[in-house]
C-alpha cells in the first residue's frame, strides 16, 4: 500500500511518501495509525494525537474507522487550510 504524509505530518515523519506491505492484523485506518505510531521516533510524534489528524483513502476524505486494504493509497494530514 502507498502511504502519503502532508504538512507537519510529513515533516515529523521525515518523508512524503512510502510503500509498505499491509501490516498483519491491520484492517482499518485507525489500525494503520496505531501501527505507524508504534514505529517510534518521528512516527510516534506525528501520530501521537489522532484528534489533530485527518485521513483520506484513495483520495477521498474518510473517518479513521474506514477499512484499508493492500492496494490502497492512504494519506495522513492535519485539517486543511486552503482558500
Amino acid at each position, binding site marked *: 500500500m502507498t502511504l502519503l504524509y502532508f*504538512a507537519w505530518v510529513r515533516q515529523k515523519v521525515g518523508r512524503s511518501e512510502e510503500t509498505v506491505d499491509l501490516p498483519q492484523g491491520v484492517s482499518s485506518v485507525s489500525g494503520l495509525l496505531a501501527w505507524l505510531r508504534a514505529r517510534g521516533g518521528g512516527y510516534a510524534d506525528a501520530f501521537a494525537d489522532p484528534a489533530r489528524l485527518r485521513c*483520506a483513502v484513495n483520495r477521498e476524505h474518510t473517518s479513521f474507522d474506514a477499512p484499508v486494504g493492500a492496494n490502497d493509497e492512504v494519506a495522513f494530514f492535519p*485539517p*486543511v487550510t*486552503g*482558500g
Partner: protein
Amino acid sequence: MIAIRVQEEDFDLAAEAAKLREGATGAIATFTGVVRGDASLSLEHYPGMTEREIARHVEDARARWPIQGVTVIHRIGHLPPGANIVLVAVASAHREAAFRACEFLIDYLKTRAPFWKQQGGDWVEARESDEAALDKWR
C-alpha cells in the same frame, strides 16, 4: 465551462472573468483570496485529490443552482504578502445563483480541498469558523 486549476503562477481576474463571459450572460460573481499581513505564505497540496475534491463540489453547486460556468484557480508554492491565493468565479443568468454558488464553493474549498498553508515557518491552524460556515449549506 468548468475550469479547475492548481498552479504556482499568478492569475488575472479580468482575463478569467472575460473567459466566463463567452456564452454566459447575466451575472458573474468572483471571489479572490489574497495573502494578508506582512508574512509570506507557502502552500502545498495533495495532487490528484485536490482537483477531484474541487470538481466534486463544483458538481454539487451545479445541482443546487443554475450555473453556466465556473472557474476555480488555487495557487501553491511561495506567495508573498498581497499575492493572489485563490479565485472562484461563477457565471449564471442571475445574481443570486452566482453569489450563492461562489460562496458555497469557497466555503467548501477552505474546509475540504487538501491544501496546507505555512506562514513564517509555522503551519496555519484550521479555524472552527470555517467549518461552521458550512452549516448554511446543509
